[in-house]
């Protein structure tokens, strides 16, 4: 199994997203680097829109991730209620 990761800008809008990732992906690894936060996991990582929405108190659209994403590794699967990144191997 290979690692997938997302790197997000270290800014306010990313906080709830990272919190939601930690909540829904128990084995996730979070690294704070210069100006960015890297979140990685074995094989698969999911952001559930309802979890983020709960944290920020408004509806969150997974496409809002576009505003804070720096880079990623893995295949993307996105719909209105989730953003998933995964490897097929």
């Amino acid at each position, binding site marked *: 199994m*290979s*690692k*997938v*990761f997302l*790197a997000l*800008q270290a800014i306010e809008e990313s906080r709830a997203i990272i919190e939601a990732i930690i909540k829904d992906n128990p084995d996730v690894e979070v690294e704070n*680097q*210069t*100006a*960015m936060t890297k979140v990685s996991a074995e094989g698969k990582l999911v952001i559930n829109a*309802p979890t983020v*929405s*709960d944290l920020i*108190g*408004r*509806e969150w659209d997974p*496409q*809002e991730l*576009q*505003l*804070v*994403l*720096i*880079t*990623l*590794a*893995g*295949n*993307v*699967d*996105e*719909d*209105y*209620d989730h953003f998933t990144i995964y*490897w*097929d*191997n």
Partner: protein
Amino acid sequence: MTMNTQKRKKRLNMKDKYKHMTRLGWDTTYQDMDDVFPKDKFEGIVIHDWEGWEDPFRMTMDSYWKYQGEKDKKLYAIIDAFAQNNGQKNITDARYVSALKLFLTGVSPLEYQAHRGFADIARNFRGDGPRVACQMQAIDELRHVQTQVHTLSHYNKYFNGFSEFAHWHDRVWYLSVPKSFFDDARTAGPFEFMIAIGFSFEYVLTNLLFVPFMSGAAFNGDMATVTFGFSAQSDEARHMTLGLQAIKFLLEQDPANVPIVQGWIDKWTWRGYKVLGLVSMMMDYMLPESPQSWKEAWELYFEENTIALFKDLERYGITVPDCAATVSAEKDHLSHQIWMTFYTHAAAAPFHTWLPDEKKMDWLSEKYPDTFDKYYRPVYEHWGKLEKEGKRYYSEMLPQLCQTCQIPMLYTEVEAGKPTQIAHRQTKFNSERFHFCSDHCKDIFENEPEKYVQSWLPVHQIFQGNCGGSTLPEVLKWYKVEFGQDNLDYVGSPDQKMWKEWKGEE
């Protein structure tokens, strides 16, 4: 009541919305489709069903404009704040600005080339899914070059070495390396361009370009550059996904595509790596404070991530590019050999050079324990001694350039265990001899000699009398590089004088 239990607004499923908003093409009847799309068959790529294309981000134009508009608003707020607060005075050291000069002259014009290239393939693919995705990327790339030029224009008010970036990109010797890389891609067919830029550059190598520049900027107090970098990078995640989608699409369409695609991956990973040599030097030598060495970045972003990527592509019969072993062998040497070349040819480059100080050399020893003290520190110490004696060493010779990558023949036989022996390959084509820096560049030439015999090699052009004359002052005039202002060492430059005045050191 939490948002969870609230009923989410009902809307069209994203997959359906994407389909309705992107499948806008039709089969032409007045003209034959092959006449309307004349470029998407000659490369030998077979596409049975363009409908097989899907963008995993499912980005549609309405969302695209909305999010891009928000990104630009955020970026401009910070650019304005940087200018209003004299941010240029808060960087770690004015040496850092040379890294920005390298970026604006060597990287930003490539964003424009990418814009042109993606606009062209958006016109030339006959499937409407990839056409829409490529059109968005073309607009992104235009945004990148504009925001980069705009952000760095603030530095141009104070520092030398920015003003003629577009002119320099077309003429100055080392800038022919990035320029010819994109010229090569843009003169290929649309599928090769997609694999060259969309996959090999954007997916495999882009992290090594942007993340080091941006974390370098953050480490050195350059808020404006961090922001334009991350704003561009937020588009990059979409580009990477497009590149990965493109390669899978080609591989799934027909087994005959596999060997063609593998050849392009091999070629373009190597071509891209050669361009990134400039980044290695920037990371290890030009940043006063370095967050990460080239070697560390290579190990993290290539060796670790790319292995995962190629494991995913294994099922199609795709393997790790054949140059990976060479690149890994060279990671302990690359940045040192390149910075030494610029140090000795600093009279002809529009940014400043310097010798690494003791602190930097200790950092380099720590990051490169197997090579720095053994091969490179002694050379810097020797040059330092010459500087103290007032005999600063400049090479007066023009170097032989590699016919493929156009880099001076500065690389050594690292893979063969002879790191002090210059690597040199040659071949004959139509009874003319051509020279190369490596087996990989020679292989690329031999595969398409008719293309690479046309290379515009700066040194050859100078000797042929096409660059204003054969002496340094004549060539610099033709470059529009001001001697003693844009070039030479940082120490003694007008940039240094101004910095010292700002810091009250003079």
